[in-house]
């Protein structure tokens, strides 16, 4: 039987996801967590993990080189990939928010927004009936309003500490974010038994049902 390939996001979500898989009864080797490899085979479980940038997980899954994956809803909203969204793993809670310097108004002529999520930001402001200019940054978004690049930022907020430490305040809450189990549409059909078994085992962990 062909192994199931899982695309995992490197970093914080990875650790939480590994804990969940172990709780769901998957026998992952102990050195799994601090491996630097990009591809990890787990023959005992007939699984293969590929470690990717969180933003790239849906891309691997859409093209079918990974059968399933774990991706933040923020990435799903931004990337709009053609993948199945099977289960809310309810890990890595955070939300997307609009933030900026306190007591400031957006520029009326051409309000500017810095973000790592240009699609999400653009469609959010459009839905609010506001025409904004999006400036894409790849990290440390908080700097943008401080040094006067933009009026607002759209970014992930988990505890709000980063905003606070940089003297920013939250203006609007856009959408809550958690990590999702996603699947390639073809793999979902052809490997349905294995994928749905994993889904239901993880679902039990999500709902706090122990085996």
């Amino acid at each position: 039987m062909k192994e199931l390939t899982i695309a995992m996001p490197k970093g914080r979500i990875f650790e939480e996801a590994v804990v969940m898989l172990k709780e769901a009864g998957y026998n992952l080797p102990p050195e799994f967590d601090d491996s630097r490899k990009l591809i990890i085979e787990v023959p005992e479980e007939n699984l293969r993990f590929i470690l990717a940038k969180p933003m790239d997980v849906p891309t691997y899954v859409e093209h079918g080189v990974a059968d399933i994956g774990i991706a933040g809803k923020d990435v799903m909203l931004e990337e709009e990939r053609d993948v199945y969204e099977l289960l809310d793993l309810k890990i890595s809670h955070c939300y997307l928010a609009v933030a900026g310097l306190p007591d400031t108004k957006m520029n009326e002529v051409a309000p500017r927004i810095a973000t790592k999520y240009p699609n999400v930001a653009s469609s959010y402001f459009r839905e609010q009936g506001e025409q904004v200019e999006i400036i894409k940054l790849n990290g440390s978004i908080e700097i943008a309003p401080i040094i006067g690049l933009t009026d607002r930022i759209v970014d992930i907020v988990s505890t709000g500490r980063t905003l606070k430490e940089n003297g920013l305040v939250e203006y609007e809450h856009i959408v809550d974010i958690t990590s999702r189990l996603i699947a390639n549409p073809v793999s979902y059909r052809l490997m349905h038994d294995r994928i749905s078994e994993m889904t239901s085992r993880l679902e039990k962990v999500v709902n706090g049902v122990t085996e």
Partner: protein
Amino acid sequence: MMSKLFMFEKPMGMRDTFPHLYKMKKEIRSKVEQELSTWGYEFMETPALEYDETVGAASAILDQQLFKLLDQQGRTLVLRPDMTAPIARVAASKLLKDRNPLRLAYAANLFRAQQREGGRPAEFEQIGVELIDDSTVSADAETIALLVSALKAAGLEDFTISVGHVGFVQELFLQIVGTEERAEQLRKYLYEKNYVGFRQHVESLSLSSIDKQRLLKLLHIQGNDGSIEKAEALLEGNGGREALRELEELWDVLRDYGVDEYVKMDVSLVSHMSYYTGVLFEVYADNVGFALGNGGRYNNLLRQFGAEVGATGFGIRMDYLMEALNTEKTENQPALILFSGERRKEAVELAAEYRRAQKAVIVQDVKGVSNVDRFTAGFSEVHTFIGKAGDQA
């Protein structure tokens, strides 16, 4: 950021077909064409350009995926994004007057613009059939059985066809949420395969917990055994049962055709927009991340061209089919005859003999070759007629 184009560049999503791929594609195409022809489907062609207002508007492909241009009168034209709409145009305006039901087939290049990135072709060949003016379940079953035979004829063994019926999902949603608008929202989640969003949306609706369960259970109905019974248990009243009866009948016919092993019932399969009106299906193969092909019943399309008739059909993506077959480079390379001026006649005569036997052969003047070793390396059969007569190697 516009930089100067390099001479080798092509527009995004456009691909070249190199000789060995062309050969492979041609072989696969001719096997599939042969199979479709033996079922009585007649091949036809339509123009690559159509009016946006007619065929463009009738097509199931999203507007932003259409390549558009203007003709000299300022009318908007589209490069055909599918063949179903053009064939519907021809059938409604002409061919249905001669015969109905009508069985037509095509193999054509289609054009769909890429929004974001490469990795997917913007021009690709599709081969398919349309069975027009026959609204029986037999017609639905015939297209599915034909899809199975066509794929098998191409040499594909390992594939799965998911089959559903839009009528069932539609009726179930209407029974529970009441309005078409709210049903559309649920259907959108199903089409986007966003099960998480579907569940959250169901939880947020003000419905009885029984009705919520009816909706949530839909996601879990899988497999051929008992699918229809389970689906039926979700329905109240008479609506939607007809769709399930059709699926049941379809299943019986597919068994008569002996193709049921390739088919998986999936009662939650839906399509975007309201294009399909009845049975619909998608086909998947191992090693290819995208559906190889799809099809189904579209009873409203022909009306847009003035004919009140139902129709069904399917299309197979040649590019994905080739990927699924993953065939080796076909051997059958031509023989090579290398000659020099003195012995040209012998070379040409031998070549004629080969060609009479339907064998491919290249006749090459040795003077035209700069590096003989490198040139001949690619051929397994080489004859040389160089120097004086009698020297043949």
